Structures are given as C-alpha cells and as structure tokens.
C-alpha cells in the first residue's frame, strides 16, 4: 500500500472516478486550476475543461445547476470552497437536492457529490473556519461523510460519487497534508459504517475528522495511565452507524464525543441522545462532549488555539468519568 496525503488521496479518488465514468463532472471556483489548495490539480489537463469546469462566484446557482444536471443523467461533483459559503447554497441543497427523490415519489435521482472543506487551520477567522456538518445531518435525503485519513478520504469519495443520492463530502483543511496508507486498486469505503480505530475496554471516544488524531493521542496517553480506550471514527454522520457505537458503549460503559463544531446542537448531541436511548443502563457516567465553545471562530492564532478541542481536554474529561 502506497502512502499518500489526504489531499492526494482525494485527487486520486476524483481521477479514478472520472476515468471510470464519463458522466462524472467537476464544477467549482477555479477547479480547472486546482483550486486554492491544489486538490483538483491536473484534472482539467486530463479530462478537459468541459468536465472540470471553473464557475463564477455563484454558489447557489452552481449547486442548483449540478442538481439539474444530475436529474438529466450526469454525476456532478461540486466543490464549495469553504463550508462557510454553503450558507449560500442551502436552498438548493436542502429544498431540491435532498428532497427531490422523495417529493417526486422516486421519479428523480440526484447522484450529486458536494466536496466542501471545513474547519480550523491557519488562523483564517470566522468566515473560513466553521464546522456546520450537523445542519446537514438534520436534512433527510442528504448523506454526510467526514473522512479523517487518506484511505477513508479516497474510499468515501469514490463511494459518494457512485451513490445515487446527494452526498456531502466534508474535507478538513487541517488534514490535507496528513499522510497515510491508501489501499491499492478500486478502494471503496461504504457510507454509513464507522471505523473502530483502536480497541479498548473502559471508555469509548467517538471523534470526527481532525479530532480523530487528537483522540488517538489522548488514548495513548490514557493507556499510560492505565485507562483502556476505544476510539471510533463514525466517518459518516448521516447515516450514522448507531450499532457500532452502541455496542462499544455497552462494552466500555463510558463515552466521550469530540468534534470541532460548537457543542450546542452539534452532532455529538445526536450521538449522545441515540446512545443513551439504546444503552442507558450500561452507562456508568454521563456522556460528555468535548467541542468548541459556543462562539464564532476567532481570527487570532492565540484564541484559535483556545477554541480547538485538544488532547488535554480529552484526557481530563475521560479522567472525570472515572473520578
């Protein structure tokens, strides 16, 4: 298995799916030039600018255009440069992409992939750092995935493109340079299955995207202190792999959820509510959420650091559960 960065894995996934299926089109701002992070670099040379299409700054209409193209048989991959700007495309995404299959009684399918980059990295401030995945998971008809490593990034992206539903593929900017092994060949990761990244017996940490690495490091530290920690990456937050998470908690009796979105109304709330419903009598302590404070993301690097859930918080929270 070759090593790749998260960014390279996404690019490879796009490349493979575009090669495999001529109905896959990529649309977004500056995508033909690779975009500001270079994810789509080289694609327009290989597939032509008619399939790797630069768009004007018109997020809502480009989203709608992709939905319309999907109704007519294409499989568009739209890039929204920052999730902060998905706010401009919510009407099309929520009122059309998510609902048309249902509203048409199954007549229409919307095989649309939305690649969007999120999260905190590089002190970009409140308009380029949000984590809004829980909005999307609240919308019936959308699937939402958030890979935390190169292999999942590639496998989930390929699965998203092949899915007959709108899938929001959320990339974390802070992970673009992370390296990892990526299986050779036609590597697909099924949407809706969590990954148990570390087995443990006494506490379950569920972590998303950028916080998975932090959780794994915390688990190492906790192991040093004698606490056996299971770490689960849901990978897909809608549909959510309730079974894997609930089974883990039944075993460990304790759970912590970590994400970069603000705690209130974050996906941690949904996971908590579901787990307590299915495993209340197994819980030895309340489920705790480690997430961002209830505030916009500050620009100052010093405040940004405060804002992020870190290893120390996780370790402290876990210890509290045993306290």
């Amino acid at each position, binding site marked *: 298995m070759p090593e790749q960065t998260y960014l390279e894995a996404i690019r490879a996934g796009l490349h493979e799916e575009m090669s495999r299926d001529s109905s896959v089109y990529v649309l977004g701002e500056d995508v033909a030039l690779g975009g500001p992070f270079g994810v789509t670099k080289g694609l327009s040379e290989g597939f032509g600018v008619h399939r790797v299409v630069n768009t*004007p700054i018109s997020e809502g209409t*480009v989203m709608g255009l*992709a939905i319309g193209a999907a*109704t*007519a048989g294409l499989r568009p991959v739209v890039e929204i440069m920052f999730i902060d700007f998905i706010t401009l495309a919510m009407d099309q995404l929520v009122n059309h992409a998510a609902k048309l299959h249902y*509203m*048409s009684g*199954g*007549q229409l399918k919307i095989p649309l992939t939305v690649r969007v980059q999120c999260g905190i990295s590089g002190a970009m401030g409140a308009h380029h750092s949000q984590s809004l995945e829980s909005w999307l998971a609240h919308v019936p008809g959308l699937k939402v995935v958030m890979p935390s490593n190169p292999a999942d990034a590639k496998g989930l992206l390929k699965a998203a493109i092949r899915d007959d539903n709108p899938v929001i593929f959320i990339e974390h900017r802070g992970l673009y340079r992370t390296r990892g092994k990526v299986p050779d060949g036609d590597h697909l990761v099924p949407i809706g299955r969590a990954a148990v990244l570390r087995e443990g017996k006494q506490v379950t940490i569920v972590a998303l995207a950028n916080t998975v690495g932090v959780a794994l490091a915390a688990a190492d530290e906790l192991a040093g202190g004698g606490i056996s920690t299971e770490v689960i990456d849901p990978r897909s937050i809608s549909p959510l792999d309730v079974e894997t998470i609930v089974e883990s908690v039944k075993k460990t009796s304790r759970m912590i959820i970590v994400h970069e979105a603000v705690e209130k109304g974050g996906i941690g709330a949904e996971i908590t509510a579901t787990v307590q419903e299915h495993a209340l009598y197994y819980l030895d302590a309340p489920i705790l959420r480690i997430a961002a404070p209830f505030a916009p993301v500050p620009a100052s690097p010093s405040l940004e650091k405060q804002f992020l859930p870190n290893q120390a918080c996780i370790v402290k929270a876990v210890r509290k559960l045993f306290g």
Partner: protein
Amino acid sequence: MPTRKENSKDLIDLLRRMWLIRAFEEKVSALYAERQIVGLLHLGIGQEAVAVGTCSLLRPDDYVFGGHRSHGHALAKGADVNRLMAEIAGRATGYCGGKGGSMHIVALEAGFVTATGVVGGTIPLALGAAFAAKEKKQGQVAVVFFGDGAGQAGPFHESLNIASLWRLPVIFVCENNGYAEFTPLSAHTKVERLAQHAKTYDISSSTVDGNDLLAVRTAISKALGKTRAGTGPVFVECLTHRLRGHYEGDPAKYRELSQLTQWKSKDPVARFTRLLKSKKAITDNELQAIESEARSRAEQAAEFSLSSPWPAEEEVATQVTADLP
C-alpha cells in the same frame, strides 16, 4: 399570427390543449372550494397560452421546469391528466404518490422534470439540464417557466450570467403577470421589462403578448432555432395575467376591477377561439366538442383522483434516499 403556415388541424389541436388546461384547473378550483382538495393552490387560469405556446413546440425529450403555478406547464408538456390531478389531490395514484403536491409536480415520463415551491428555484436546475443536454449532444433543450417575482431574486441573475457564459441551450420563459403575490411589479423593481436583464448579458430576447398563443409560438419557435443550433440561451418574456387570485382563497382585493375586466377581455382561450372563428378554421360544433371533451376529461380525472386510495401510512418515510425501498 403564425410565422409558418399552420394548418387548421394544428391550430385546433392547440385550442384543445388550452381547453384541457382550463377545464382541468377550473375543476381543481371547484374541488378546492368543496374541500375535496386541500393545500396551497396557485392556478394559471388566464396564462394558458404561454404553457401551450411553448410546450407545443418542444420535443418529448426536452426538459421542462416550472414553479408554484405549473399545473398548466406539466399538462402542456404532456403529463397525464389523471395522475396529475391525483397528485394535486394527494392520492397514491398521483405522479409522486402524493408526496409532491400542487407546487411540486414531477412528470418525468413527459419531460416535465420538476416544479418547485421556491420562487426562482428551478432556474438553476434548468441550467443543469441544459448543461447535460449540451454534453450529450442530442439537440435537447431545457425550458424553465418562472414569474416576474423571480426576476428580483439572486439565482435568476446568477443563472442568466452562467447560461450566457457557457452558451447553454436553455430557454427562459418569464410569465410576467404583473404581480408577485399581492404587489405589482412596480413595487419590486424599476425594470419594467424583465427581458432587459437578458440584454445585459447579450442573451437574445423578446417580450411578447403572452395571451396571444401564436405570438408566444412565434417567439419560442425562433428561440428553439437558436438554442438547438447551439448559439446559447434565449429569453422570452410573456406579458400575461392570472385571472384568479394569487392562490385559491385569495380574494385579490389589491387588483382594480377595471384591470381584471380588461384582462378578461384578453382571455387567451376566448381570444384564440375568436381568431379561429374569424378565420373560419373551426365550427361552433367543433368548439363545443372541444370544450366538453376537455371538461369531461377533467371530470374523469377528478373521479379517478377522488376514488384513488390515499398513500399507505408507511409511505411517509419511504423514498427518502434512492437506496431505501
């Protein structure tokens, strides 16, 4: 006046199509008044010439998109009367199994891709179908119907830009009926003719009398010549008027009575009838047969709908995603 010679049979067929829509919507209105149909209904009575004038020139595989006032657009594109009425009535036999409803018609078999409850919402979708059509190179076009109220919404402008930039085979059909809900166009914009926006983008455009069926056909026919030839989008603004309230139940007190009377005298169905009669292209008997056939089809559709079952309870949460049952 038709630009190319239309024979009487063709013309009579056009009248028949308008009558079908008229009778259909009058029946829907009656059923609503009786509470046999519920929901939020926007009828296009008075605007039939735009739907028929446009869709009668389209290929079955052309893509049509509508909005909240689109029963007529779907019928004109060839949607089945029974399944359409059943959908509006919320029955299992409706096009969408009752999940869509009046504002959200989908009749894919007829090339009526979707309507929407979001003003202006399908304009970008039509661009997408046109984008796909362009790539598929089968000469298909996309047509989107929208009102004057959509002309002040951002997506409309973003769409004109992209359609012109990428020379998409899309025809924008603006039904300028002078009102968005209860307020006249002059309260929404200083731009009197929405076709003006097309000019900004160098999109070929025209403004026509939308109650004159043949004028609409002439404009659309020219538009199709261009879009099918690959020269990009065309914008056709049709000046028209809805003869009923904004929605069923709206007493439309904001409208001057004189205005309504004036527009009634321009009723597209009566007007086209007068034309055919003046050209002696139709007899009174034929006329009556057309109207009564339309009304009886509407009646049958109503019977079909009201005797159809309601959707099964469990349907409430099926078809949420394409991989579920």
